[in-house]
């Protein structure tokens, strides 16, 4: 039997059990909407699946049942015991059909007109007049009897839908079925509740069946379906399946227990073997060898209970591809290779959805329309190829298409537009890096959102899901030729292959999945070199950043002997790095045990395991190792989007870019990048001392420079990093000790500060960082800095009201706006703003924050429209993510800008005010 059919039978049998119980409950409590909805959903699912598997009889019965249930649900019909009985009967009929299907692999011939008629009648409200169970006889004369008497199914159906004035699918389908052959006369055997089946079975004269009638009858008798007594005995028994005997459902916990026990058995066996080796007792040798073999086989078998062919995850794909390609008007072949490749059931479940999503994506975005393909010189029919194979203890799944490939330029534009990358980053990124941006959150490349994919929750979700199970996803794409996605996943989550390494006298397991290679290092020929404490290693003419495991784990390094070390080359994401260990032991298959809840949050380790010798060792999390690399300040940081994307994947919420630097002291400081115009590395000897500080010639003008840590910290020679701020008229420089990094992170000022010049401390990239009040330093340089332009424009000095609940942004934007030549009043919220209005303060423009409370802001804005004082003012909304701004806000406020985007904020403001003046 087809696997799909088998699954359907198992699933449906389960659903029907539920329906039975729920219906009974429903009958008792007809007002319970939840139960009814549940029943409706289950029956609907059965109907849907039947349609999919081309089982017209089942579908028709289920459909009729569903229609009746639908009337209940809509409240169009009262729930009577008779009606519920009828539904139960239809469920029984479905079970009978299923039982036949199970033994024969095909639906029995014949039809279910009897029950469908009853169901339809009931749906039209005729049943409600009737008394309980023995309702059958009235049905016939009252309902479609005239039509039945004709014995003509077509007329019968015509009659059905003419009268209610509606065409149901069931009626149509029933009509088609009727054409198959002569139909038994239901009147010949007025159907008692469960009788219809017998009538049908015995009267079945069709010959279209694949099996001969005799065989069928025999089989029916065998399966306990043929006899009338059996029918009367209740359909509940009849669907108890032969299938159930072959495969049983076992609680996963039981399987897990089995796994644990077998693991223990293996350990005990190993101990025995070890003891016997030492004692060398020949008496034990034979039995021990047998025990050993049996244990191994047992382990294999238990492992098998966890394994399933990957084909199980692919089963629905052909159908999906067919439907999808039809929907989008494309011609697509799906080729699947290696579907017998086995992997852990758990992993299988977890990759099912990502795979489906990716195949859909390929249909939707990858393969072109036939006309486009022809124009590109390809065959009209596109190909999507799925391929799975084992490689080095993991499974590789390739999903390739011969479609249009990824349009690098379009992705770049979109990434820029969405702010996923900055223009500077975009310039540095290779095509491959750009293409990987499709894994960044909220990224969808489809020009139009279709109902298939392109909802903006695409590849980033796929990526997250795959990474959750310790997998890796990558892609290769050639524009015009197609795209290949590579997914590397572990075979199983429970057992993994691990490299056992030693550091600081302890052993640790490192997932083999992450290990690329092993190198011996530390001797003269292959030295470990350092650049200002950062250890690096020359690996095939590239510098490999190194992390020392012992040091990072705070282990004792005094007992180390000799200079020789091992470097385990690990790859997480795109950047390979080396982990220095003292010893390398072996590769072992380990059973991963989760850490006690007390130890979670301890992110260095992903679990623990018991080795063959009984020792417990910790399993290192490769991602934590990658963090060790990232946290070393002097290490070359990896470039590009990989990092941005991964950060963005874990963090949601408002993110901003920050420049991280040091100035006086080791604690990093940060300032919003959007405020900084340029970063310069100037020759310190060109700085000149003027009467009130340092100046330097910068781009043909004099620029005042102040050092953030005080004048004494200014360098006298060498290079001096300077942050350049610009107010539109002239630049100002703030010197710092060292520029560390640019990070993209959510700002969360955790500790407010009373130190002037420091807004507070925030955690950026896992490190406590002081957030600098830029305005303070700028004012320190030049008290007039914030107002230089104002003098020129004194006549047209504009007053701006800034409504912003977040003190950080208030402090940030006020000087910014002042610097741009506006007079600024800040309100900490809508309430404060209203107070200002009551005091009669007039403004030319009102900037309102949407992030704190969008509704309140929109209401505020709407209220202002008719305000005599503030009505005429230019209203602009600000948000951390303007593209998410609600429509209401968009309507109320003329424009919505990103508050972190200094340039566009000023430009929008200036443009708005100018236009207004002109008007």
């Amino acid at each position, binding site marked *: 039997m087809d696997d799909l059919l088998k699954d359907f039978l198992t699933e449906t049998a389960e659903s029907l059990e539920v329906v039975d119980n729920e219906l009974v409950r429903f009958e008792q409590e007809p007002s319970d909407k939840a139960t009814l909805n549940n029943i409706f959903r289950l029956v609907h699912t059965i109907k849907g699946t039947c349609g999919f598997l081309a089982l017209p009889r089942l579908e028709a019965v289920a459909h009729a049942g569903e229609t009746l249930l639908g009337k209940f649900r809509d409240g169009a019909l009262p729930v009577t015991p008779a009606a519920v009985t009828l539904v139960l009967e239809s469920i029984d009929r479905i079970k009978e059909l299923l039982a036949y299907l199970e033994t024969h692999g095909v639906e029995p011939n014949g039809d279910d007109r009897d029950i469908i008629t009853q169901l339809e009648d009931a749906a039209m409200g005729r049943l409600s007049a009737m008394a309980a169970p023995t309702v059958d006889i009235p049905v016939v004369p009252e309902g479609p009897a005239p039509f039945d008497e004709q014995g003509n199914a077509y007329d019968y159906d015509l009659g059905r839908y003419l009268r209610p004035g509606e065409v149901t699918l069931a009626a149509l389908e029933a009509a088609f079925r009727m054409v198959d052959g002569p139909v038994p006369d239901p009147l010949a055997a007025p159907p008692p509740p469960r009788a219809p089946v017998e009538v049908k079975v015995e009267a079945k004269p069709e010959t279209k069946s694949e099996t001969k009638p005799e065989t069928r009858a025999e089989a029916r008798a065998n399966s306990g379906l043929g006899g009338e007594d059996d029918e009367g005995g209740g359909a509940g028994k009849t669907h108890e399946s032969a299938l159930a005997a072959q495969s049983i459902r076992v609680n996963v916990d039981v399987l897990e227990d089995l796994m644990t026990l077998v693991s223990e058995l293996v350990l005990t066996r190993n101990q025995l073997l070890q003891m016997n080796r030492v004692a060398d007792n020949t008496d034990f040798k034979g039995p021990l060898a047998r025990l050993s073999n049996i244990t191994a086989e047992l382990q294999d078998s238990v492992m098998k209970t966890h394994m399933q062919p990957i084909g199980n995850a692919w089963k629905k794909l052909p159908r999906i591809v067919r439907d999808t390609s039809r929907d989008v008007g494309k011609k697509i072949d799906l080729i699947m290779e290696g579907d017998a490749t086995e992997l852990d059931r758990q992993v299988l479940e977890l990759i099912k959805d990502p795979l489906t999503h990716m195949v859909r994506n390929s249909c939707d975005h990858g393969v072109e329309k036939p006309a486009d393909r022809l124009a590109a010189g390809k065959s009209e029919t596109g190909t999507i190829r799925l391929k799975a194979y084992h490689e080095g203890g993991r499974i590789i799944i390739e999903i390739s298409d011969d479609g249009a490939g990824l349009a690098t330029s379009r992705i770049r534009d979109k990434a820029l537009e969405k702010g996923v990358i900055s223009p500077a980053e975009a310039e540095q990124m290779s095509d491959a890096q750009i293409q990987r941006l499709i894994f960044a959150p909220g990224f969808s490349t489809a020009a139009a959102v279709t109902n298939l994919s392109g909802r903006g929750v695409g590849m980033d979700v796929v990526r997250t899901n795959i990474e959750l199970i310790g997998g890796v996803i990558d892609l290769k794409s050639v524009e015009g030729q197609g795209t290949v996605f590579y997914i590397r996943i572990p075979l199983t989550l429970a057992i993994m292959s691990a490299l056992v390494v030693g550091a600081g006298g*302890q052993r640790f397991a490192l997932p083999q999945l992450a290990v690329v290679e092993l190198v011996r290092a530390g001797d003269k020929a292959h030295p470990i070199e350092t650049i200002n404490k950062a250890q690096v290693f020359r690996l095939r003419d590239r510098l490999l950043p190194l992390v020392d495991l012992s040091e990072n*784990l705070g282990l004792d390094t005094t007992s180390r002997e000799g200079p020789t070390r091992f470097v385990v080359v690990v790859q997480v994401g795109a950047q390979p790095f080396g982990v220095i260990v003292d010893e390398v032991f072996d590769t072992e298959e380990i059973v991963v045990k989760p850490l006690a809840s*007390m130890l979670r949050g301890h992110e260095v380790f992903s679990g623990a395991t018991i080795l063959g010798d009984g020792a417990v060792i910790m399993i290192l999390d490769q991602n934590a190792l990658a963090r060790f690399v990232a946290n070393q300040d002097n290490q070359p940081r990896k470039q590009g989007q990989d990092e941005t994307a991964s950060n963005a994947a874990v963090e949601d919420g408002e993110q901003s870019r920050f420049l991280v630097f040091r100035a006086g002291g080791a604690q990093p400081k940060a300032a919003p990048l959007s405020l900084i115009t340029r970063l310069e590395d100037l020759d310190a000897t060109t700085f000149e001392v003027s009467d009130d500080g340092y100046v330097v010639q910068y781009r043909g003008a004099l620029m005042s420079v102040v050092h953030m840590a005080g004048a004494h910290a200014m360098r006298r020679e060498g290079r001096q990093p300077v942050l350049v701020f610009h107010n539109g008229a002239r630049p100002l420089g703030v010197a710092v000790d060292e520029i560390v990094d640019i990070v993209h992170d959510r700002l969360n000022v955790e500790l407010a500060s009373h130190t002037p010049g420091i807004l507070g401390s925030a955690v950026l990239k896992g490190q406590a960082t002081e957030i600098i009040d830029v305005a303070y330093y700028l004012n320190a340089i030049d008290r007039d800095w914030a107002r230089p332009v104002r003098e020129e424009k004194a006549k047209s000095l504009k007053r701006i009201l800034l409504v912003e609940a977040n003190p950080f942004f208030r402090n940030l934007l006020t000087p910014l706006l002042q610097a741009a030549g506006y007079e600024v009043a800040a309100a900490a919220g809508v309430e404060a703003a209203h107070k200002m209005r009551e005091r009669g303060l007039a403004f030319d423009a009102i900037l309102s924050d949407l992030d704190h409370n969008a509704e309140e802001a929109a209401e505020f804005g709407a209220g202002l429209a008719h305000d005599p004082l503030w009505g005429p003012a230019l209203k602009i909304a600000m948000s951390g993510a303007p593209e998410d701004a609600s429509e209401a806000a968009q309507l109320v406020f003329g424009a919505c800008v990103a508050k972190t985007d200094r340039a566009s904020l000023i430009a929008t403001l200036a443009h708005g005010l100018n236009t207004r003046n002109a008007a």
Partner: protein
Amino acid sequence: MKQVEGIPANDDREYVTFEIGGQLFGADVLEVQDVFQPHAITPIPLARTEIAGLLNLRGRIVTAFDARSRLGLTAREPSSAPPMAIGIERDGETYGLLIDRVREVMRPSIESFEANPVHLDARWADVARGVYRLKDRLLVVLDLDRLLDSGVANQAA
């Protein structure tokens, strides 16, 4: 009354008693799974001091929790006798509470039970349910949940 909760009056409870740093402690027998001698504890780098490490107890990985450290006592002398462990099952996870020495199981009379002295060290008061006045010494009743719980809370902080 916090001290009496969990110890209903008129009910003489049974306690597994053990010594930590010379003090006699008791834990409700119903909360103790077993008592075992821990072998080969694997230390966990970067973990808090109370967590002694992981050990293999009949094929299960058990987190060893050091009672001395939790109670703010000095670390065990390397020369002293190896610690014993009390197995505690909690939310499906097994913990081994490392103690110095196991004593007998006893059923002290509820008459001799008393609340914690008011000036008891806060760290101790937090995990002690109360004290039994035994004939020759005092028995401090440990609340094992709290003992491990605050460990978790500390971790979160």
